């Protein structure tokens, strides 16, 4: 179906479709006035972040997961996408279609240029080169391209739409925020069912549909001869050249595709909130997408989406936890114990989220290189084997 002649792939697509389209329900399992409501995640802006970073990670995985080329500079393309979109808002109108198109095109062009140079080397060199390019793009956006003579990025403040911008296609009656032919990204329908409250946001659903489309495309790429060539490059470049194949155009194509995905994510980000800042291009942002991909499961289809969701969810939860919350949690303990627990946990929550992230990063790389997908498979196998008799040999399943 849909050209996916592998039944598992089709099921996977259906699962992702169901999860994203029903996310407002799935992510809001707790009544809105209960104590557990803080673990809800069905807010428009958080859900938007889930799918947008999902797109970013799915694209990154096409490069890293398939070819094994570890780029440390993909945030640059995301940033380029955001800047391109905001410029379209400034010049044309708040319609997101031209903005996102330009975001993808500009990010692809950037990826082509950076990839052309970086892919002349592989391994560590490649990682360092992409890192250097991304830092250079950050410096360009932060200061070089923001000066009175030539202000492309508006430096520290970030690029945004001002009242005196041309917006040549803007008409009265169109919303003054990003919209799709008049349908505002911010409009949200809230459904109240008993104690529960579910929000359906236009921006989220548009992003979710884009995610489904590009996820479908990623499945097709994974199953295509091109995808196989990329896996072959990761596996053995020597055999590749001695089979008469030139690895470089394949890796460059993968690089540009993943750059385009990043640009798309950047464009969508600007479409949700018409602002673009240089910090989106910093190495920390590049590191984050690497982490999402690895945490979920490098080279698997669903992994990057899981990783993105996982990280963005826990970022949201952890950042909200502060001293007061911690004291509430441990209030049942004797005073000394309570203070001790708060003291132990405090560095990892609130502003300490990055510390947790770093530790998680190390733990995953050390103990679970296959990420959550591998973890799930191991768990599944363990449960299966426990149920069965011991003589049935463990079947190795390809990671999906």
């Amino acid at each position, binding site marked *: 179906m849909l*050209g*996916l*002649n592998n039944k598992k792939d089709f099921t996977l697509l259906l699962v992702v479709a169901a999860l994203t389209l029903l996310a407002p329900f799935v992510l809001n399992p707790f009544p809105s006035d209960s104590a557990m409501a803080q673990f809800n995640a069905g807010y428009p802006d958080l859900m938007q972040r889930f799918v947008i970073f999902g797109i970013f990670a799915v694209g990154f995985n096409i490069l890293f997961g398939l070819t094994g080329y570890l780029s440390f500079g993909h945030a640059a393309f995301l940033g380029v996408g955001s800047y391109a979109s905001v410029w379209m808002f400034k010049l044309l109108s708040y319609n997101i279609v031209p903005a996102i198109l330009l975001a993808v095109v500009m990010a692809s062009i950037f990826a082509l240029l950076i990839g052309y140079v970086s892919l002349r080397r592989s391994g560590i060199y490649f990682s360092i080169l992409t890192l250097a390019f991304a830092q250079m793009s950050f410096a360009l956006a932060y200061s070089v391209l923001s000066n009175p003579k030539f202000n492309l990025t508006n430096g520290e403040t970030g690029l945004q739409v001002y009242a005196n911008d041309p917006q040549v296609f803007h008409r009265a009656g169109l919303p003054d925020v990003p919209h799709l032919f008049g349908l505002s990204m911010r409009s949200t329908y809230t459904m109240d069912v008993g104690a529960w409250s579910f929000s359906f946001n236009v921006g989220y659903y548009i992003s979710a549909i884009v995610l489904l489309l590009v996820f479908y*495309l990623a499945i*097709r*790429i994974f*199953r*295509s*001869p*091109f*995808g*196989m*060539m990329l*896996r*072959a490059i*990761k*596996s*053995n470049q*020597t*055999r*590749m*050249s*001695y*089979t*008469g*194949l*030139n690895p470089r*155009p*394949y890796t460059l*194509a993968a690089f540009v*595709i993943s750059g385009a995905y990043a640009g798309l994510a950047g464009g969508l980000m600007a479409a949700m909130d018409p602002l673009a800042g240089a910090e989106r291009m910093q190495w920390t942002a590049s590191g984050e997408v690497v982490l999402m991909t690895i945490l979920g499961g490098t080279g698997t289809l669903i992994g990057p989406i899981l990783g993105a969701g996982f990280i963005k969810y826990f970022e949201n939860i952890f950042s909200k936890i502060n001293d007061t919350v911690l004291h509430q949690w441990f209030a049942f303990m004797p005073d000394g114990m309570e203070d001790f627990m708060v003291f132990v946990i405090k560095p990892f929550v609130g502003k300490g989220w990055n510390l947790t992230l770093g530790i998680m990063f190390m733990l995953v790389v050390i103990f679970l290189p296959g990420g959550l997908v591998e973890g799930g498979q191991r768990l599944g196998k363990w449960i299966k084997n426990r149920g069965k008799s011991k003589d049935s040999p463990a079947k*190795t399943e390809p990671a999906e």
Partner: protein
Amino acid sequence: MGILEVKDVGKRFGGLQALSDVNLSVKENSVHAIIGPNGAGKSTLLNCLVGKLIPDTGSVMFDGQSVLGRVPHEINQMGISRVFQTPEIFGDLTVLENMMIPCFAKRDGHFRMHAVRNMMADREIVEKAEAMLVDMNMADKKGMHSASMSRGDKRRLEIGMCLAQEPRLLLLDEPTAGMARADTNNTIDLLKQISDEREITIAIIEHDMHVVFSLANRITVLAQGTPLVEDNPENIRGNPKVREAYLGETA
């Protein structure tokens, strides 16, 4: 004129003259062995043929065209395939996928973007790869992870992958190195079968005299970077110079 003509090739690494005045002519559809003691320059010569090294002097012509200055994948596309000393296969891929890649390379050239088409839907390629696996006696292994196979099977797969490209010249670099006797004999049989059944020229670098004399119909002896003698196996066996330079060592 042979299909492969090597003329006056020399290669120097710093102070070491690895090859000098190498002349070699490999006849079409022959099995040509290049033998010599360790350090005779066999591997250097092979690397000069496939574009991994560029000789300092001389010329290498394949089917009337120079291979010098071309990179490995271009030389491969001219019709030269190489089998490595330790099997070079795509270990992360299945056996069938391994076999499909050279089929794509043969049909589509060094780069072609089929990014959304399902690879298994390309019947032409799948059928060709499956037929090749049958030829190689590996049809039962097609779904296997290729890295988990035995060394002999990996070798067989690698040779099959090279043949799937329908090369005119197959270069083998010590194809039986590190193999058990049974595997060695299997490989000899396989290569014999290939040279009998296909229109193909085979050039083989080998250390094992058993392999050389069971396969080759022409032998070049290399010593200290330069060819000592080129003749048919019977004459090589009796040649005192060869005995001294090479066989003497092992005898």
